């Protein structure tokens, strides 16, 4: 979706390196969701952020929602081959009802052993 831009579109990193994926909106993000998708499979929920400045972590993955609630970043520390896949951000940019989610185009991550 052009309303929700992810960058970079693809990323190749060496195992052990850190990386950051960004999700930027021209509208206020009422709720921001991060998912991981393995090629040809379903979406795995990673985390959800709602409050400006909020930060959540799960294992080696940290996501933040900036104060103005128009950008989120996903940071992976010490990447592993198991982190490879497509990372998708989804956001409620219509209202705060949580029903009309818009998704970014995804970031393809490859981790070289």
């Amino acid at each position, binding site marked *: 979706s052009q309303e929700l831009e992810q960058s970079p579109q693809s990323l190749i990193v060496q195992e052990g390196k850190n990386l950051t994926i960004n999700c930027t909106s021209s509208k206020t993000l009422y709720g921001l969701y991060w998912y991981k998708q393995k090629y040809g499979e*379903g979406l795995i929920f990673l985390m959800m952020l709602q409050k400006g400045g909020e930060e959540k972590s799960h294992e080696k993955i940290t996501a933040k929602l900036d104060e103005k609630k128009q950008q989120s970043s996903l940071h992976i520390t010490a990447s592993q081959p198991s982190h490879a896949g497509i990372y998708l951000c989804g956001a409620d940019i219509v209202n705060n009802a*949580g029903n009309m*989610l818009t998704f970014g185009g995804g970031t393809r991550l490859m981790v070289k052993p």
Partner: protein
Amino acid sequence: DAGITQSPRHKVTETGTPVTLRCHQTENHRYMYWYRQDPGHGLRLIHYSYGVKDTDKGEVSDGYSVSRSKTEDFLLTLESATSSQTSVYFCAIRERRYNEQFFGPGTRLTVL
């Protein structure tokens, strides 16, 4: 996995035939969603439901209808399938307490 199943998981059909996809959940969630995922377009919302017999349109609802006669099942129907409806279809539920959305495993539909 939030107790979501989709059936069938794969289907090949011909243009003009009706197709129904089923989403089943076991945890009594009120909100359910149907998305399609296509290269170059990403994930787009087709329809959603906020209760039994309560549904609303999403971004790409043309050519699709839905029904929800009981809490656990949300059906997506293509009345007359077209090749442009070849896609991967995902069902999702919204967990009420934290507003988190969880997705089903997907159905790959090919319309020849």
